[in-house]
């Protein structure tokens, strides 16, 4: 009997063209799969993609809105990438962002009479502390008792959201409107706009600086080398005398702090108050960003911008073609799936076994 069998084998040597080709294939598949779903939703896929990717780039407003939308992703993506580099699977950037937003809001509600520069610094510190606080318990459980951080960080996300809604329906409820949202914060803590005529705020600069620091720390410092060693081969790192648990703990807190600053940025730069919709899943999207960026910090910046475009574009697509605006999330999810699949082929290849087999 003649038959062809497929099997998976480790790729021995990687060619330079491999990763761009695989990424291109992943993007083509993303178009094909998303097109089917857009068609299903009753719209023309080509028109939808024109709106999703094209329309935000056609106006200065579109571009600045995409950058605004990318700002929290730069921070959450960087936070997740940092943790993942050390092999700490922090899926809790969402909760850490919310905790950062809560602490920043607390500062913003009590900032009357302080100088603006101090207000901004306090907001950043409060955001970082909040994120760190939320990352603390899973980090401690992991490093002391070996409890899986994927579960603990993930499960603390809805808890953070419950704390937000609890505060908004309780002590922080807006006294004037009675809506479950805080009153507008003191102007002393607003992040200044950094590009005239747009909503782009200081958070973007902070995000880029944070990415640069992460990139530098991971690549150029002793601590960063420890993180990489622990992430790549914890056993060998331990044999070399590195304190694996301590490294994981420190990294987890740093990651939480960065995600927390993203929360402070949303409060101080965009909303100027705390609402329960402060984050439409920026923390979860951070995992997508970090993964698509293959944990490279410069790539986090690029991917955040691409996803920012899709976010903004999904609203114009939704308006123009009357399809749900969640189409943007669908495209992002498909992109994640195809890119992760492509990454498998980066490491492995499919081998054809041809020949006659006796069965």
């Amino acid at each position: 009997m003649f038959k062809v069998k497929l099997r998976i084998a480790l790729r021995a040597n990687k060619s330079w063209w491999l990763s761009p080709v695989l990424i291109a294939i992943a993007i083509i598949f993303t178009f094909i799969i998303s097109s089917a779903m857009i068609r299903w939703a009753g719209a023309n896929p080509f028109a939808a993609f024109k709106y999703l990717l094209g329309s935000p780039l056609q106006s200065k407003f579109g571009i600045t809105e995409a950058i605004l939308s990318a700002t929290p992703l730069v921070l959450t993506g960087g936070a997740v990438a940092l943790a993942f580099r050390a092999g700490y699977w922090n899926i809790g950037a969402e909760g850490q962002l919310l905790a950062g937003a809560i602490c920043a809001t607390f500062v913003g509600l009590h900032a009357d009479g302080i100088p603006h520069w101090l207000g901004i610094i306090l907001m950043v510190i409060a955001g970082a502390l909040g994120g760190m606080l939320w990352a603390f318990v899973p980090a401690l459980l992991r490093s002391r008792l070996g409890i899986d951080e994927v579960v603990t960080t993930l499960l603390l996300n809805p808890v953070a959201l419950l704390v937000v809604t609890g505060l908004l329906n309780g002590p922080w409820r807006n006294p004037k409107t009675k809506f479950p949202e805080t009153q507008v914060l003191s102007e002393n803590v607003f992040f200044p706009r950094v590009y005239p005529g747009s909503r782009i705020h200081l958070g973007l600069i902070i995000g880029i600086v944070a990415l640069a620091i992460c990139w530098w720390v991971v690549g150029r410092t002793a601590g960063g080398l420890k993180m990489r060693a622990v992430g790549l081969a914890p056993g060998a790192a331990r044999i070399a005398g590195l304190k694996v648990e301590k490294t994981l703990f420190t990294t987890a807190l740093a990651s939480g702090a960065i995600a927390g600053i993203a929360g402070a940025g949303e409060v101080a730069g965009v909303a100027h108050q705390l609402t329960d919709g402060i984050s439409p899943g920026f923390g979860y999207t951070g995992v997508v960003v970090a993964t698509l960026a293959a944990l490279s910090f410069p790539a986090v910046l690029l991917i955040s911008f691409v996803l920012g475009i899709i976010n903004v574009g999904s609203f114009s697509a939704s308006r123009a073609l009357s399809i749900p605006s969640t189409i943007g999330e669908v495209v992002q999810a498909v992109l994640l799936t195809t890119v992760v699949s492509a990454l498998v082929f980066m490491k492995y290849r499919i081998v054809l076994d041809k020949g006659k087999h006796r069965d």
Partner: protein
Amino acid sequence: MSTADAVTGYSVAASAVSLNGLRKIYGDVVAVENVDLEVRAGEIHALLGENGAGKTTLMRLLYGLTKPDAGSISIDGATVSITSPKIARAAGIGMVTQHFSLVKTMTVTENLALQDAGFFSLDLAGARRKLLALCEEIGLEIDPDARIDSLPVAMQQRVEILKALAGGCKVLILDEPTAVLGPQDVDSLLDVIRRLRDTIGLSVILITHKMHEISQVADRVSVLRRGEIVATENASGMSIASLTALMVEGVQQEIVETGERSSQGTSVLAIKDLTVHLRGHDVISELSLEVRRGEIVGIAGVSGNGQSELVQALSGVFVHQTGEIHVDGKLVKGGSPSAFAEAGFGRLGEDRHASAVSALTVEENLILDRLHFFSKPGILLKRKIRKFAEESITNFAIKAKPDQAIGTLSGGNMQKVLLARLFGERPLAAVVSQPTRGLDVVSTRYVRQLLMVERNTGVGILLVSEDLDEILELSDRILVIFKGKIVGEVARKDFDRIAIGAMMAGV
């Protein structure tokens, strides 16, 4: 060439396998070039060569794991295209590597039945019959109902061999079969190999680094050097010296003066009443020993008598143990790996792949255990690191670039990087476990000389090795370990293989 071999004296027998003009190129590296090799029916044919000489590539070609770029393979005189292990097995070729392919939670019989099983059919009774018949024929004893994970490694290896035989194997490839065995088990394995030849006429291709195994069992031996067969001879006519010469000819060798042996120094490593409790019993019980400045103390023992656990205790793997470990007179508190590192105690584990971060570069691996020395304040000192890496590469004759991922190095070079890391730190004392396991002759010699040099500079070294020759060659004193206890101590002037062997066996 095959006609020339056929008249060299050994009874002329039919050829079981012949490789004709095989060539395999990986990228720009010629792994195997123009190899002609004939294995006769019912002979034990040893294949000798350094690491990287092409032994493994050759066997992968024969077993269908990779395809040749040129040349052909014939089995029983007929040319066969072997494109997969399945085809190789159908053609009567079996292979046993160091990594067994047995299902550990199943019995011996079940493992044998598994290889013939269809989707819905499993012939346990038939497999059992076949197994017992084979054992009877060869004169082996094995419990068909024993679970694999209850068997010692040596037994598992026999099951692996029986499995290949039950699958209809006529030519058996054994890839460094003794690397996983203790000295006693080596002899019985060699005996089994001999019996396989004599009872069922099996042809065996024995890949090995160890010369004395060749003189013990092989009928003929082929020597591979840089991908080419440089000689095929009757094993009985070859001395260890001439084999070594054939294998390493033209390879640069450094001879290092080892200097006077004296061990009058102060104690740099002292273990007091160490007990390690594992798997329900004491694998090490109340063990005490001492290593002084500038001496090598060898731990001799049959594998599985607590050597691994002793090394692991000294590497900080078992934190919860009783007893005390002192380095340079100071108690190592906590017993974690970092505590040992801080105490100035060097460690070389038995598995180099577990000790190196393979995706990091050579220089990053080199500095991993003393980052504080190469960073200021916390920032890596690139130039200092590069300089140290280049010095280590020169001093330790490592064939690598500083920014090359360590996982791409050969075993010998990887081991040299780990030794450079260990001794670059100027430790007072060190434990070195299986330092030359799986290394080729040149690397082995280099590593051994290096240990002598470090000893002469004053490092106290505890050497744990399953290679008794290595221990005899290097040690100033030998301690014999048996069932987790030190049962004897022999000074260098009293070294005696037989006496030490008896102690190792617990006599």
